[in-house]
């Protein structure tokens, strides 16, 4: 009984996965995002240097998109159980804490150097 239900479950789990078509789709998304980043860095910013301030947040958002596609599709996390996804993603949020602490700290370093 137990083994049987496990087997049924196993089949369900493997139902949705990476097909070759999907792999190439994700590849072209990653390549496309990288091309957009290069377009901003090599063409838009040299022409309009005052846009440099806005370029950085755009790079970071695009990078997070790329990270999502790699982790969700290439590393298959999107098709794993919700519990596994959460146990990987929630600890990552602690990194935000370190970013906040150290950027705050580095503002003080500026005044120390003066």
């Amino acid at each position, binding site marked *: *009984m*137990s083994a049987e*239900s*496990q087997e049924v*479950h*196993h089949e369900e*789990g*493997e139902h949705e*996965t*990476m*097909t*070759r078509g999907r*792999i*190439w789709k994700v*590849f072209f998304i*990653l*390549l496309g995002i*990288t091309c957009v*980043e*290069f377009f901003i*860095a*090599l063409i838009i910013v040299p022409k309009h240097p005052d846009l440099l301030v806005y*370029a*950085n947040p755009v*790079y*970071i958002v*695009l*990078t997070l998109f*790329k*990270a999502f596609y*790699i*982790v969700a*599709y*290439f*590393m*298959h996390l999107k098709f*794993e*159980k919700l*519990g*596994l996804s959460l*146990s*990987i993603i929630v*600890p*990552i949020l*602690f*990194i935000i804490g*370190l*970013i906040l602490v*150290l*950027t705050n*700290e*580095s*503002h003080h*370093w*500026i005044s120390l*150097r003066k």
Partner: protein
Amino acid sequence: MSTAVSQIDEVKTTPWSGGRSPFNVEYGKLMMWFFLLSDAFTFSSLLISYGSLRFAANGVWPAADKVFQSVPGLLESGAPLVFVGLMTFILIMSSVTMVLAVEAGHRNDKKQVTYWMIATVIGGLMFLGCQALEWHHLYSEGFWWGSTPAVDELGKFFREGGTEAVRHMTAQEFANLFFTITGFHGFHVFTGVIINIIITINVLLGTYEKRGSYLMVEKVGLYWHFVDLVWVFVFTFFYLV
């Protein structure tokens, strides 16, 4: 005599009562995920220290498109970001061949797994070769751990501002962080290539065919994609921002 199983002997099947695996993944794969989580913390602390030192430099920091503008062997200067674009493409490409190897493993197709694993190893070696050229180029310009080009030559790496002393300091910080972070990433690529070679040999020997599953390919695949993931961040913070 009744054959009904008493309540206490029944095998429990709810997710957290021990009847089956709550995460529905094999032990080794779960541990690979947790290892990668710890590695993600290591890389993020390195990158966040880079970010905070750069913040503290208050704008006087070597500009990526001025430092990285050579294509080793072709152009000495005037091609900003072209070479690193090639490196990024190689690494994304080898990630694709890795995921194709995993997909072929699901179909128990030994020939295709071998083919894609070899392609992944070649991609990894190409990336390492490119990184060696990049390091050599920066080294020959004078950047290294604890050394920078001569102070009066540093101006060409900066966009604006700063006294010579400040430029010397931030150029040194940049060099130290660049070699440490790309070095640590390159070390991961190197170990990834070694592990991929071992797995490829095992595929060729038929180890996983006998075992009936190519789960090991999936586990090293996770590691390899993680290396690609880290490069995405290194690329953004060193070459774009």
